[in-house]
């Protein structure tokens, strides 16, 4: 037998800087095209869903199909406002980094619908185990913007006491679990939290987030195994924003399937959802929450979106992807799409939108001013004693001695 020579395969994206944006086959579906099974349906009967794409809003802003939710218009307007505040805050604080007022920042640009819709779709006691692109969750729940900005500036009033990198928030009262810079390390915490809620016969559920790149981590698979085994009341989300810093989504997917299909091997129903469609995100999240609250176990949701900004203040996306890729994204801008929907409903117009834009700009300006008055990075910081607090519940001799050593 003549031996065939082996060859090492290394995947590459469809387009790089200098190329025209080219997304390849995104496996898109039309609005309203995907069926909506009853939440009690057996997982084995729903294996078409991870290959579809749940979309509710059509190009004219109408809500169409079985996934079209019924949401009070004031909730829609609240969602719109939360997305706009998030975007304006991101722009302002990204600039603040360039002015040396903070060490680091990460924007949610293009992904605002995810945090906003899920925050409003879930109950106050539910716990979100977020990624660093979920600021809209906090904003939609009216987390004080000045407090958030104090964290970004690591100043004296930083709610996390100067201990954590900017944007890696924690806000227990707002259902927002402590973030870490490690990827995927809290995915399993959501499962454990949900199992504990079930153990206590509570009604609260957990929602967990990772990006598509992080599905390559062992943590992702371990969490899904436990979620499946113990039918944990949790919603397991994968935000597929196409880029993990400079690495395209195909690098984590094996370049073949959708991320929602990752649930199939675990017996977890998978939904693939247009992440730029506020109504689709809201509706899919509610569907998964209904399953969780009915003791039917976890759901895996892929939120299909596009990271419109760089990964963080530390990278320039024009070095690894085509310059106009964000504008070419076929699923549009989540803010524009929800705005259009409200206009179509007769509940919004350009004048009110312009007024809200001004109001949001003023809200952000005033919050940042308030935080700046306390101080930006290096101008103000919490008392240095805070460095030694909370290492243990009760400080041991090392902490006590070292605090004295520092003060000498």
């Amino acid at each position: 037998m003549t031996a065939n020579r082996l060859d090492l395969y290394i995947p590459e994206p469809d387009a790089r800087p200098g190329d025209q944006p080219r997304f390849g086959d995104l496996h898109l579906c039309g609005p309203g095209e995907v069926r909506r099974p009853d939440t009690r349906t057996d997982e084995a009967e729903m294996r078409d869903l991870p290959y579809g794409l749940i979309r509710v809003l059509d190009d004219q802003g109408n809500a169409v199909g079985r996934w079209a939710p019924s949401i009070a218009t004031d909730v829609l307007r609240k969602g719109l406002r939360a997305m706009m505040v998030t975007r304006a805050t991101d722009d302002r604080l990204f600039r603040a980094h360039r002015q040396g007022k903070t060490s680091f920042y990460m924007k949610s640009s293009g992904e605002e619908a995810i945090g906003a819709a899920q925050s409003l779709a879930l109950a106050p006691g539910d716990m979100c185990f977020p990624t660093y692109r979920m600021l809209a969750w906090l904003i939609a729940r009216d987390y004080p913007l000045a407090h958030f900005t104090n964290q970004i500036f690591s100043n004296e009033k930083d709610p996390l006491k100067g201990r954590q990198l900017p944007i890696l928030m924690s806000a227990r009262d707002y259902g927002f679990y402590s973030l870490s810079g490690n990827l995927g390390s809290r995915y399993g915490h959501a499962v454990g939290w949900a199992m504990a809620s079930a153990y206590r016969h509570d009604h609260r559920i957990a929602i967990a987030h990772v990006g598509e790149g992080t599905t390559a981590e062992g943590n992702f698979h371990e969490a899904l195994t436990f979620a499946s085994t113990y039918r944990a009341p949790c919603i397991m989300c994968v935000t597929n924003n196409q880029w993990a810093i400079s690495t395209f989504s195909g690098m984590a997917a094996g370049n073949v399937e959708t991320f929602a299909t990752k649930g199939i091997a675990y017996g977890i129903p998978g939904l693939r959802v247009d992440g730029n469609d506020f109504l689709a995100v809201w509706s899919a999240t509610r569907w998964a929450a209904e399953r969780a609250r009915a003791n039917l176990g976890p759901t895996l949701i892929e939120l299909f979106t596009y990271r419109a900004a760089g990964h963080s203040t530390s990278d320039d996306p024009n070095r690894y992807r085509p310059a106009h890729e964000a504008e070419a994204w076929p699923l549009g801008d989540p803010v524009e799409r929800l705005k259009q929907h409200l206009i179509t409903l007769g509940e919004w117009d350009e004048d009110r939108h312009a007024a809200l834009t001004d109001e949001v700009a003023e809200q952000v300006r005033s919050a940042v001013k308030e935080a700046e008055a306390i101080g930006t990075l290096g101008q103000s910081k919490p008392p240095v004693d805070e460095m030694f607090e909370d290492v243990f519940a009760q400080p041991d001799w090392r902490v006590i001695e070292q605090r004295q050593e520092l003060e000498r």
Partner: protein
Amino acid sequence: MPVMNMIQALNSALDVKLSQDPDVLIFGEDVGYFGGVFRVTEGLQKKHGLKRCFDTPISEGGIIATAIGMGAYGLRPVAEIQFADYILPAFDQLISEAARLRYRSGGEFWAPITVRAPYGGGIFGGQTHSQSPEALFAHVTGLKTVIPSNPHDAKGLLIASIESDDPVIFLEPKRLYNGPFHGRPDEAAKTWAGDPSAEVPEGHYTVPLGKAAVVREGTEATVLAYGTMVHVAKAGIADSGVDAELIDLRSIVPLDIDTIVESVAKTGRCVILHEASRYAGFGGELSALVQERCFWALRSPIRRVTGWDTPYPHAFEWDYFPGPARLAEALRGVVEEN
């Protein structure tokens, strides 16, 4: 001779090995097309091809497991972990596998891998972009742990690491990438230009693993340091007025015990400086070794100047960071004590 910063020197080491040895390949998160978040692999994919320098999924355990498998086959992979703080998901692979493969297989299999990782603080990176985990690796028999302090050493040590038949953890002090840092954050950032150690030969050379450098000769005390702390030590010694000998360990496994003993036997005093937190840090091992081997020469107790026993705190970076003032105080202390 060309002048290089540490990033360029490391890039040059990788370029030399890729050119010289077809069994060397480089992979890690964002190292391919983008050239790495700190630009250490910039241009290598373009020059040497997609298969010699490529991106990986975000999976540190996967990266190291794959590297071990390639090493077992006979390649010499150089894996990058984007930040040393992210290496922990790969800990099982490093400790249970890479460190023991040769031993447990009776010498049948081994993994000559090099794992590069930016490490250490001084850049306001917060808890997960600032840590110094070297003691965790030093504790594991079978792993070598290398920490350069300047561009010349970085290149020579990296080439020596790649050529080593043992697994090497190669920790790059990220605060030194663009210039020396003396632990005085208020001073303007320096570049490597003008520093003799930034004169880096173009081609192949090695700095042997396990050979410390005596950076400054002195008579009154010995300072043991590595990485960023070598530069902090220079400043601290100057501030102290003590005639201290400064030893840059360069690698903590293997450790150049002879140079340490010779120095402490001469000076009779020892201060250990590291950025990592103190308790069970590598300074504990150094202190034990010096005590065991130099007890009768010691004129005062050994001191450790280190980060505090807390997680790395973002806003308190300069309260945490063991700067020159703390070293100077310790040096004056060991001299006065005795």
